[in-house]
């Protein structure tokens, strides 16, 4: 078949960074094309150029043989290009339906046709199997639900090209399946799909062809994905072999470190109890909305608990104050990096040391030398791609931002309990294994670690024990020896009998 979407020598630079250099490749009609690469390799930049949001310094885009001259997002839209960006682009105060129509509201003479506004959206949502009410405000949706709304943008009009930038990073396997089914349907209609992900399983599950970017350059182009292997892709991306991503190794556990008794809060009505030992890494698995993040926030005091107690090494932790929790030895690395993680407008260094700087600031006066040393250390260790530690964090790629937030907590001293919510969301394979390695090191020093993840392979790959949550309750608690995909998924699903279309598809 013929090439439908073509990138011809695209280059794009930002001050201090050449994000794309002379990138050229083409995608056939009706193909799902994967785009992979390390954090900061230039994937999102390429997609932004395609979306008309950013213009390339050089090069051109052709769709169906036609050179595109669009100068705005609107032009791209009219050329039949729809882009789902890496960061959620929703307006919290508007309803789901309004968000989906934003920029192209239906109606005459500027007056919105409300029936069409809601009707079309209900139809589309039902068609792809997303269960949210079109008239609810986006502000009241969970991240996962928001991501699904974002994805629904892809079917609001008949597009010729759809680009999805890490759409599954905040979805669990169940929602991901909805997306995959949707992609299959679009492919059948002949739509070209550009698909960015760090998850190799998905790439193999969905894509027909693949391009790998590295340092803004084209590292490899595979017109037929069946001709490549995982290891090959990894080494094209990272430039080295990674034998075993998980790298789990056995450890001996000490005394009980974290003890949770009957905690409950506004969004978690059923009291929860569990404990974690020194040196133990406990994974929390569940579907979106299972309440894992709520649990973590209650433990940390980010939300106020209505009852129950949290103690570290036998000492009680106050109920409602992150600063006190940190001093008691608990930290939480939040799941929503944009709203709860990064401090916009401030440098990488400041973002990294915001909590730990008190350790090298006698009388509140910061020692700048120590600060920069610490920042440099974790920039190197986590391989953050940036021209300087003084770079504003918003200028980093999504994955690199996530690394900085991780660095914030890994650089803390005297921490006894580390809770990480979706630690590797949007992080490339190479960095992932570095992060796991750091976690093992911390555990070996006696830290109690809680990992919340929606990626089952990850939870199974790196933890010593898995607690499954379902609808705000603890549904299972399995030691590593008893890890079993079917059992975990079964425990995570609310009610097996009622749902006919449970995605029991195996996740490799």
């Amino acid at each position, binding site marked *: 078949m013929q090439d439908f979407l073509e990138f011809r020598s695209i280059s794009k630079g930002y001050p201090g960074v050449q994000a794309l250099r002379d990138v050229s490749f083409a995608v056939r009609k009706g193909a799902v094309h994967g785009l992979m690469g390390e954090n900061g390799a230039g994937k999102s930049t390429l997609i932004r150029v395609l979306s008309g949001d950013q213009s390339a310094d050089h090069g051109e885009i052709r769709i169906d043989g036609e050179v595109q001259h669009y100068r705005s997002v609107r032009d791209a839209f009219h050329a039949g290009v729809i*882009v789902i960006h890496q960061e959620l682009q929703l307006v919290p105060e508007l309803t789901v339906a309004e968000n989906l129509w*934003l920029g192209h509201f239906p109606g005459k003479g500027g*007056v*919105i046709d409300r029936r069409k506004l809601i009707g079309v959206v209900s139809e589309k949502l039902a068609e792809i199997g997303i269960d949210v009410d079109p008239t609810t405000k986006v*502000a009241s949706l969970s991240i996962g639900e928001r991501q699904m709304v974002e994805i629904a943008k892809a079917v609001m009009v008949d597009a010729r090209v759809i680009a999805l930038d890490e759409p599954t990073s905040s979805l669990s396997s169940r929602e991901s399946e909805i997306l995959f089914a949707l992609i299959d349907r679009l492919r059948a209609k002949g739509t070209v799909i550009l698909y960015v992900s760090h998850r190799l399983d998905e790439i193999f599950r969905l894509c027909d062809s693949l391009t790998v970017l590295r340092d803004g350059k084209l590292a490899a182009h595979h017109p037929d994905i069946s001709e490549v292997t995982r290891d090959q892709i990894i080494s094209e991306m990272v430039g080295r072999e990674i034998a075993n991503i998980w790298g789990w190794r056995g450890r001996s556990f000490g005394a009980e470190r974290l003890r949770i008794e009957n905690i409950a809060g506004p969004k978690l009505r059923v009291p929860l109890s569990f404990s974690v030992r020194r040196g133990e890494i406990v994974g929390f698995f569940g579907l979106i909305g299972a309440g894992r993040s709520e649990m973590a926030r209650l433990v940390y005091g980010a939300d106020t608990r209505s009852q129950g107690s949290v103690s570290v090494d036998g000492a009680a932790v106050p109920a409602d104050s992150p600063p006190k929790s940190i001093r008691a030895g608990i930290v939480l690395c939040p799941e929503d990096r944009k709203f709860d993680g990064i401090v916009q407008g401030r440098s990488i260094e400041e973002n990294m040391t915001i909590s730990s700087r008190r350790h090298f600031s006698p009388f509140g006066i910061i020692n700048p030398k120590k600060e920069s040393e610490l920042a440099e250390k974790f920039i190197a260790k986590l391989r953050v791609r940036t021209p300087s530690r003084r770079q504003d964090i918003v200028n980093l790629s999504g994955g690199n931002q996530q690394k900085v937030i991780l660095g914030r907590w890994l650089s803390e001293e005297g921490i006894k309990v580390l809770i990480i919510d979706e630690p590797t969301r949007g992080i490339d394979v190479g960095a992932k294994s570095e992060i796991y390695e750091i976690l093992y090191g911390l555990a070996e020093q006696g830290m109690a670690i809680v990992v919340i993840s929606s990626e089952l392979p990850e939870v199974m790959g790196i933890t010593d024990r898995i607690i499954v949550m379902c609808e705000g309750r603890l549904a299972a608690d399995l030691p590593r020896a008893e890890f079993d995909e079917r059992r975990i998924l079964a425990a995570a699903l609310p009610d097996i009998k009622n749902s006919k279309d449970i995605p029991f598809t195996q996740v490799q």
Partner: protein
Amino acid sequence: MTSLKKILLGEQGLVVIFAVAFAIVSLTVPNFLSERNMLGLLQSVVTIGIIACTMMFCLASRDFDLSVGSTVAFSGMVAVMASNVSGSILVGLLAAVLCGAVVGTINGVVIARFRINALITTLATMQIVRGFALIASDGRAVGINDPGFYQLALSRFLGIPTPIWVMGLFFIVFGFVLNRTVFGKNTLAIGGNPEASRLAGVDVARMRIWIFALQGIVCAVAGVLLASRITSGQPNAATGLELSVISACVLGGVSLAGGRAAMTGVIVGVLIMGIAENVMNLLNIQAFYQYVVRGLILLLAVLLDNLRSVAGRQRV
């Protein structure tokens, strides 16, 4: 939640609180509920009320406009001068509207195209426009030649003075625009998440320019009505108006962080401001204490409204 609580803390909470406060005031303050006082009260909030309509859009889109007071004074002056010179009130009106539109458009272009902070830009135009008003009139009030001009404010329809009708009309029109039109939704969208709106293809800069232009036009209407009410164009009119209008909007639940606005809220906000002044004067509260009372009412109103929304929402 009991149902009483539900009503108080729900979407319409401020309206309910207001209704209760209104009832109490009506019962306890003598003369308050008389028809004459009600009309007087409404007339006293016409300027604030009219401008609050567009200020609501301005704030909802995450902008800010300090130049409204000067624009009111300037366009009022222009209306009087132009109709004196031309002998036609209509020409005066058109000239005023044109001036308002020009000021607003300049604000909008500077803010949206040159990307200059709205506070600074409108603080600058506030001074420049006031300067023009003073220069044009040599700092003196300009008298109206044609007594027909007074009729704009003095005439009545069904016993209610025209300015009140105009304000009511504006409330209805802008309420409709906010909730039912593309313009309104886009305004909320660019305030709620400018980046997302831009990426969805909303022409954010154009929207912002339109909003400011509209604000200028609306200020001109208010300016003309004011000039007619005080039977002259006064270069010093409406100083400090900007803060009153913004307060009324914020009281009415418009978020300064953008993205949130409701016409009913703003109407209530405007009325609260008006009633506070009215009641203080009816009760003969001494001028210096009025400052204190005014401040306390402002605080109390947002505090109540806030209790409501804290209970309603959890995380933002």
